[in-house]
């Protein structure tokens, strides 16, 4: 596959970017995510997460299930700061 193939559309990362990071010695998807921002854009990895995991798995000679999964955090979609300012403060 040609290396200018886009893997993460939100962060504009190509297959070459991912492979370069793997070649520099990283085989942990969590670390690669932090180094490249793969999966940290508006779609929160729903397009690229599996592509990243498969690329790392094939480079590491492992199955996807053996890799450390990247962390999921709220919010699930981009929101305006004003929506949080109006959040319920009642702890009762």
């Amino acid at each position, binding site marked *: 596959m040609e290396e*200018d193939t886009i893997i993460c559309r939100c962060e504009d990362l190509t297959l070459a970017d991912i492979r370069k990071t793997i070649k520099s010695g990283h085989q942990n998807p969590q670390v690669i995510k932090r180094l490249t921002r793969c999966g940290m854009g508006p779609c929160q990895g729903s397009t690229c997460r599996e592509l990243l995991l498969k690329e790392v798995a094939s480079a590491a000679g492992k199955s996807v*299930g053996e890799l450390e*999964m990247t962390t*999921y955090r*709220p*919010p*699930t979609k981009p*929101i305006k700061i004003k929506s949080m300012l*109006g959040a319920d403060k009642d702890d009762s």
Partner: protein
Amino acid sequence: MKKPEIAIVGGGPAGLSAALSAVRQGAQVMLIDRDPVLGGQLVKQTHMFFGSKKQYAAIRGIDIPQKLLAALQEEGNGKFDPRVNTTVLGCYDDGVLLLEKEDRAELIQPRKIIIATGAAEKMLPFPGNDLPGVYGAGAVQTLMNVYGIKPGTRVLMIGAGNIGLIVSYQLLQAGVEVTAIIEGAPKIGGYLVHATKVRRAGIPILTSHTIKKAYGCDSVEGAVLCNLDEKWCAVPGTEQSLAVDVICLAVGLTPQTELLWQAGCEQQYLPELGGYVPLRSEKMQTSLSHLFVAGDAACIEEAGSAMVEGKIAGLFAAADLGYAENVEALNETFSRELEELRSGPAGAKIRQGLSRLKGGAQVC
């Protein structure tokens, strides 16, 4: 902070059935969906369903939500609280959900949560896959069947599973030309009844074929295909170019499990079930006792099994709250329905995946 007895995330076939099942037992249910109308993917499924009458066989997908909603209105007795245009932004380990509607956030603390968030479409990596004109099949179906918009004039469909075959036929119905359906595997993955329908309409289905790249200046102008050998490697010299303005990806679905990950549910990677799936018991209860799961979020199957899993999750979420009438008999009926749905050759992959699921989930 509101404390509904049961909150269900996702108002598709699984979520609606879970709501009805829980309400029938007497529980109070809040059903949350990010879309303006309930029904999930059913709202664009203009084709008739197969299978058993209990799962609405011979009824069009688009007509099923109304039936479930009518029952919920009739039997809900003030206990059914639907929330549309509402997104669940967070699912925390203490059972709190963070909701957002029209730029306003709200925290709720339901006693039980049923995650019925469905699936996400898988992406295929190839050069040019970021050009406008490359769509997921689900997006094409939404554009056509919900909004009445044609995605383009000449389509290349990638994937000959049921979604690829059905969406190809619906493109034809909308007056769009489908140039070819290509499939990487040596065999058609979907039901042959769907495949013969598109073949009769003159659409070639090319197995052992993949897309090498998409080309075009500002948007898709064409695609280059090539043959695959039995090891899924491109065969040199087999490239052919196809002039299309839409490339539609129907290369599989993966469970939408992000809220389950956030909450800290244990999960297992099982490609037969679509990717990472939450561990759960035969009650559809996850490793966290207040969290249940149903439908494609639990494993990629069909709307029929999603509805039955919803009934089971709704039944046991309600039972845990003390609404325990007739639970065993109902569960026996539901489990048998699920077993029947998974019994044929089409269910082999699901049966295999479920048998590998750690912690003793239901195996037929």
